[in-house]
């Protein structure tokens, strides 16, 4: 077992592609369904607030992480990519239900203002099972704890968010309910309001991203400091 970023690669980076490359071979669908089973039976469970969340950001088919690794992070959803491929292929209702439950949890998390988090913002981590924004033992909602042996994620880097957003889209496609796009829309509006207009052309270059994260381009901002709009503010 290791961090989900890496343990998820052998299935998350391959099976979905194999379903495409071997479109006429049911073997890949069968194998990809196992990811769905793991999500349902092992990797996720209901937290204290009865929301389904990933139990850890350390995952394997037989183990999940404990202690400071017990966080539902965006990267946890790299491992579920094969199940997404199955859903895209045949609309499996079990996967649809699982994803809807997971996204319901994340929508509730996004709307939470615990710890001063601005309403609407999707945190990078939620601890399991007690739903602490920012993760287990995190000092605040946007900073994770980083004891040795953990791979936890701070919100500022926005790393691997796409994996979570993918299942937001699945939940929306299944239900047609706009609430599943709401956190994404509100985050967009929040970014625009503060002058950070997302580039529709594509992701920024690494150098540009680095500039953004250090907010050096923002007038008045100190290099390396947290940009103002990232700070919890009561009027957000």
């Amino acid at each position, binding site marked *: 077992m*290791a*961090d989900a*970023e*890496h343990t998820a*690669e*052998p299935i*998350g*980076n*391959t*099976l*979905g*592609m194999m*379903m*495409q*490359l071997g*479109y*006429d*071979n*049911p*073997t890949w*669908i*069968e194998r990809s*369904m*196992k990811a*769905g*089973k793991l999500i*349902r039976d092992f990797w996720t469970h209901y937290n204290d607030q009865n929301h389904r969340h990933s139990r850890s950001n350390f995952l394997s088919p037989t183990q999940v992480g404990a202690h400071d690794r017990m966080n539902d992070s965006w990267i946890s959803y*790299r491992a579920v*990519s*094969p199940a*997404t*491929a199955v859903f*895209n*292929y*045949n*609309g*499996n*209702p*079990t*996967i649809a239900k699982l994803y809807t439950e997971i996204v319901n949890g994340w929508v509730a998390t996004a709307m939470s203002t615990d710890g001063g988090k601005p309403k609407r913002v999707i945190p990078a981590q939620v601890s399991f099972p007690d739903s602490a924004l920012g993760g287990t033992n995190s000092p605040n909602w946007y900073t994770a704890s*980083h004891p*040795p*042996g*953990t*791979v936890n994620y701070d919100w500022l880097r926005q790393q691997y968010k*796409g*994996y979570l*957003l*993918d299942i937001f889209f699945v939940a929306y496609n299944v239900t047609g309910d706009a609430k599943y796009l709401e956190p994404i829309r509100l985050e967009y509006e929040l970014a625009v309001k503060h002058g950070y207009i997302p580039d529709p052309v594509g992701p920024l270059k*690494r150098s540009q991203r680095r500039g953004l994260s250090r907010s050096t381009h923002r007038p008045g901002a100190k290099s390396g400091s947290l940009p103002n709009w990232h700070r919890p503010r009561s009027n957000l």
Partner: protein
Amino acid sequence: MGRCPIGTDREVTYSQTEARRTKGASEEPLEQRADCRKQKPRGRHLRTHWPISTSEAGPTDHVGFIGIIDPLFIYTRGSWGRPLLTATVTYENTTEDFAAATVTADPQGLRIYYYTLAPGRRTIGIVPWELEAGGTYRLVYGIDAGDDGKIDIITEQRDFVFPQHGSPVQIDVESRTNYVVEIDQLQRGELIGPAPDPGLSAQDTRYNPARNLPTARIYNVSFQPIRNIKIAFYDGFPSAGGKPIAVQQIPNIENPNDLEPRMVTVGVNYRLDQPTDIYVAIDPDDEINSEITALNNVAHKRLMDSGVNAKQPAPKPAKLLRKRGRRG
């Protein structure tokens, strides 16, 4: 991707690695400078050598490693997300000696630049994954003589109905010639609702010599139960004079909605005395109205081929462990 293993929080970027490669090429062995784990040098290993130069991304980046992502995106207009590294276009029968850039691909059409070094004239398949099944499209492709991304000499223009996902669009290409391929939507396809989908593959087609029994395993890969489907076995390719062996009927294959695979194995009594090409077809009379795909309805395998069907005992776990130990 792109991080060192647990315990270190240093990210090694491609540019940093490139800088090391150019600056320190003569100063330190490749294995050392590429290994962010500070392990002992390992000697010549595939992952430390171009083109599969994965070590700068950490040894656990198995698939989406640096060096492969950009070509994949250029050739296929792939993207991150969904099933990771989704390709909007894939290719068939190209050989590995070709270059392609997919500049746009969506349900309304696509545009591809294509160049091959494979000798002679060949028919290749472009598999457009974004096109709408049942939609009508116009294909225009031709030679870009001016190297400006525009078709100067049209090789072929034709309209077609895109039958189903996974279907290739075939074009003929000459070696060492710039081609531009354009597909535009003329009429939208139909939304595909829930559909059944029985499927099989060649690897699930076998022969039991003790019972003279060619068998095929039929899966249900949809979320609808499948009732009363026919499975036909042929000795030889059906449309090339293959002899029908028998037709079997499967009364029911439940749906795999609980995420447990659902399959049924059927067989026919047919003695094989020599290697024989056996074809298996699902729904040979085309009685199922709509399926997710019909591409998985036919499989072919040469049974009784030497070694292919010979049953070998699976290695015991202890043996596997010893093997791994020696390797590691």
